[in-house]
């Protein structure tokens, strides 16, 4: 097995600082000049601005919507509630999620509202300021109904959020139920209750869509999105249009993180408005709207139970999840699947059983958020493993080493039905321990405890494993007569730098300079098919598809040359953009010019991959105030083959910052009536530079055995590994026996409160 450890971060810093091997990203040239083009930067003449009147009530019966005053305001083009529309389109269910049946999410609320922020009426005006004035003049009459905010409460409640239907929208089970004798006879059994708080994606650019009606009754749609072809299909289905009449273009996207792969009711309402008025219409969401949601991420109540023998061999693991899908089951109902299939993490556990319920509540609908079910899985098992170590009086690193799936047991099929491909989980932990100086920190911790000096110090480990990629992706490479190459991909960059990295993939196969290759993606009029960018799938799946397409282009060129030279194809060789046989030689450019288009299209569906790694955090908790300081964070990741190290390390860094945000600061909070309290970036705290601790990144590389490219997928690991490492470190620092006593985010108050019993005990 190919296995090597990459350089450390200081080496990376030097290389980057030298301007070394990594070329600048192509995207940068326009973005640093303010010449990028985000949806809100498109300023077509005569465009109407949309503002939504949204529900201030979390659950209620709708009376009439009084739009008269708003309509009379100068400059207002239209104000409509559902009652004004001949038909109210419904958001199509996603990924075949059956939970939506009978629980459709309408473009504008009909009869009932089910979360604060649900669009009730659409206002259109030439000017956003005027549209907001008109919004404020719309009067709503909503009679409040009981509000359910917690998925476990909602599952057991008499209150039906959808009349005649259970609040549990989906119930699933993975693995076999565990024989009660296993729990009874095991030397140790530990349990935990963990809360995965609701998070806000907070891409710096919020949602945005611009729609222009076309003469053929079709639409051109510019949207800040992750999956243009999916959006096209959904809009077509919801509006009853043939797909060919809709063109979706995704221009520059200001971050997405899972929140822009969906089709939202607002998009449907904007499309309806554009068609009814025959005008170009845009909706640019503002931050207050974005924080109100949808989407939110995470939102799981988890119960875990783990049995082990006296030596610390894990015998069984059980995970029960109540997932909050918010007011309408949408893509959030898919997330627990991810949590379930990778529930057992990197461990060889003979019995694993997972039960999940996706429950409707009166929070805003949830969606995948960077990590999308994986941080939830990793945190549950990694906190539980740490609890087990405490119970056994064993070092948590040693306990992990005892239970890892060994490299020679890979590929490995988990009891929940997922296949792990390749890697060396023990080596990742060992590398992380060496890098952070694990033994040194343990010695220091022991000394502080012995002498009672210094702030409580804790060391936390998270050995994660994730699943990346899914389904097929389209890739195409064409040799153009001018000597350049055109690559098409069905993926959709939202900041990951595909314009730079995808040409690198194609260039490496063709043996030509990357500068000769131009990438086009995110336009359904040019790219015939595609899925998009999420689930760390771009390089793993989309890159692999381009890799194959480039190979197929070479074959096609050899075949074409063989035909025109009338020689057997075996005699034709390809090298660096030319084919030759004997004395004859022609460039692909000339071949295309002479014989017609040379283009290879590929649709490739590799199996999902299993990147993995280990994160170790060292923290101090200020005893009086409860403030957590992360002193060190080491991240060891194996993403398989990495095409562009600078981009991938940037992804690691950024997702670690988001992971720290979940661990320490971020939480969407609702008041008891279901009104969100975190409506500004002063209430919803994402990390600033001052909150990001010293981070050391180390890479391992076990190529993905299932694709010729060998990439496993990157981008989400920091969100997966960092939270559990930090919370385990804080539990370790505070020496908490009941790990459920503290939940994320680990605010000073949460830490201070969790520490109280210990303080009280010490004082007695």
């Amino acid at each position, binding site marked *: 097995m190919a296995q090597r450890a990459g350089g450390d971060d200081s080496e990376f810093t030097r290389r980057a600082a030298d301007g070394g091997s990594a070329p600048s990203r192509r995207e940068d040239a326009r973005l*640093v000049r303010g010449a990028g*083009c985000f949806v809100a930067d498109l300023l077509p003449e005569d465009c109407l601005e949309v503002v939504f009147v949204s529900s201030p009530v979390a659950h209620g019966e709708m009376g009439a919507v009084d739009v008269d005053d708003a309509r009379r305001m100068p400059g207002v083009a239209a104000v409509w509630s559902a009652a004004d529309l001949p038909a109210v389109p419904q958001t199509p269910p996603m990924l075949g999620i059956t939970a939506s049946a009978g629980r459709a999410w309408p473009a504008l609320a009909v009869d009932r509202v089910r979360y604060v922020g649900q669009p009730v009426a659409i206002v259109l005006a030439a000017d*956003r300021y005027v549209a907001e004035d008109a919004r404020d003049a719309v009067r709503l009459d909503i009679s409040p109904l009981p509000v359910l905010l917690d998925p476990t409460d909602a599952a057991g409640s008499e209150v039906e959020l959808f009349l005649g239907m259970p609040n549990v929208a989906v119930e699933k089970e993975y693995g076999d139920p565990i024989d009660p004798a296993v729990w009874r006879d095991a030397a140790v059994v530990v349990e935990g209750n963990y809360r995965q708080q609701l998070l806000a994606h907070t891409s710096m*650019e919020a949602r945005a869509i611009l729609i222009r009606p076309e003469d053929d009754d079709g639409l051109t749609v510019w949207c800040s999105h992750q999956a243009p072809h999916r959006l096209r299909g959904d809009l077509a289905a919801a509006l009853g249009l043939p797909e060919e009449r809709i063109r979706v273009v995704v221009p520059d996207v200001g971050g997405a993180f899972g929140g822009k792969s969906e089709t939202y009711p607002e998009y449907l309402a904007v499309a309806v408005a554009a068609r009814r008025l025959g005008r170009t219409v845009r909706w640019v969401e*503002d931050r207050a709207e974005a924080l109100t949601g949808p989407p939110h991420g995470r939102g799981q109540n988890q119960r875990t139970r783990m049995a082990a023998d006296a030596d610390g061999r894990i015998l069984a693991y059980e995970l029960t999840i109540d997932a909050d899908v918010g007011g309408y089951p949408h893509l959030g109902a898919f997330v627990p699947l991810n949590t379930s299939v990778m529930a057992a993490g990197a461990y060889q556990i003979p019995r694993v059983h997972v039960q999940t319920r996706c429950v409707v509540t009166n929070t805003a609908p949830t969606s995948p958020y960077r990590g999308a079910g994986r941080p939830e899985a990793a945190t549950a098992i990694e906190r539980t493993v740490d609890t087990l170590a405490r119970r056994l009086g064993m070092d948590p690193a040693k306990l992990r080493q005892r239970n890892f799936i060994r490299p020679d047991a890979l590929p490995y099929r988990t009891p929940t039905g997922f296949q792990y491909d390749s890697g060396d989980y023990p080596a990742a932990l060992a590398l992380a321990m060496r890098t952070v100086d694990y033994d040194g920190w343990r010695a220091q911790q022991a000394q502080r405890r012995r002498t009672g000096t210094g702030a409580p110090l804790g060391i936390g480990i998270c050995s994660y494993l994730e699943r990346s990629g899914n389904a097929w992706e389209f890739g195409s490479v064409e040799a153009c007569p001018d000597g350049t190459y055109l690559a098409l991909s069905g993926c959709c960059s939202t*900041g990951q730098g595909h314009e730079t990295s995808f040409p690198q993939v194609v260039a490496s196969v063709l043996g030509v300079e990357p500068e000769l290759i131009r990438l086009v993606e995110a336009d359904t009029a040019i790219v015939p098919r595609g899925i998009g960018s999420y689930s760390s799938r771009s390089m793993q799946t989309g890159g692999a598809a381009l890799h194959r397409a480039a190979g197929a282009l070479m074959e096609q060129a050899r075949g074409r040359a063989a035909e025109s030279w009338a020689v057997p194809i075996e005699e034709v060789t390809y090298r660096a953009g030319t084919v030759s046989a004997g004395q004859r030689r022609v460039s692909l450019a000339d071949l295309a010019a002479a014989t017609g288009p040379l283009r290879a299209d590929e649709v490739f569906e590799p199996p999902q991959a299993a990147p993995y790694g280990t994160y170790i955090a060292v923290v101090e908790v200020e005893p009086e105030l409860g403030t957590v300081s992360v002193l060190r964070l080491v991240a060891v990741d194996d993403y398989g083959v990495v095409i562009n190290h600078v981009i991938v390390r*940037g992804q690691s860094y950024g997702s670690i910052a988001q992971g720290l945000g979940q661990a320490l600061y971020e939480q969407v909070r609702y008041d008891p009536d279901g009104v969100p309290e975190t409506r500004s970036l002063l209430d919803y705290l994402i990390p600033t*530079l001052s909150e990001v601790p010293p981070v050391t990144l180390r890479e391992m590389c076990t190529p993905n055995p299932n694709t010729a490219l060998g990439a496993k997928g990157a981008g989400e690991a920091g969100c997966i590994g960092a939270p559990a490492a930090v919370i385990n470190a804080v539990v370790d620092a505070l020496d908490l026996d009941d790990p459920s006593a503290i939940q994320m985010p680990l605010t000073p108050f949460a830490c201070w409160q969790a520490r109280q019993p210990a303080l009280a005990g010490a004082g007695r």
Partner: protein
Amino acid sequence: MRVTLTVNGERRELEVEARRTLADALRENCRLTGTHLACEHGVCGACTVLVDGEAVRSCLMFAVQCDGREVRTVEGLAGADGTPHPLQEAFSAEHALQCGFCTPGFLMLAAGALQEDPSIADDPDRLRELLTSNLCRCTGYESIRRAVTRAAGELAGGAS
């Protein structure tokens, strides 16, 4: 109301409502869309521009407050001949941007600070405090810090 601004050296006469923000005036009236809006309540700094050389959040300022003043946006950062500003080069070289949505704000924040006091980059605490004023959701900031340090070096080198 009628206001006259000098934006990136160019005089602009605009007819705006009193409530119109500087950000909207720049983006929509002047069609200079490099200045981005990410919160519109003064927290993220994506909308940072220089007004009379000083970094301000253009979402918190009204266009009428800038009557007769000089505004510099990211579009005016490069030299007149298109030569990129050292900060622009450094951001790219250090991979200090991913989606690039926050980038104009960080560039203008740093440009204002380095112009006022180039030594700020030599003091890690002051630099940290400066860059803590803006939000980025993609990069984790480390590369932004490196980029500003690098550009400060270039600027100092050029001056000496």
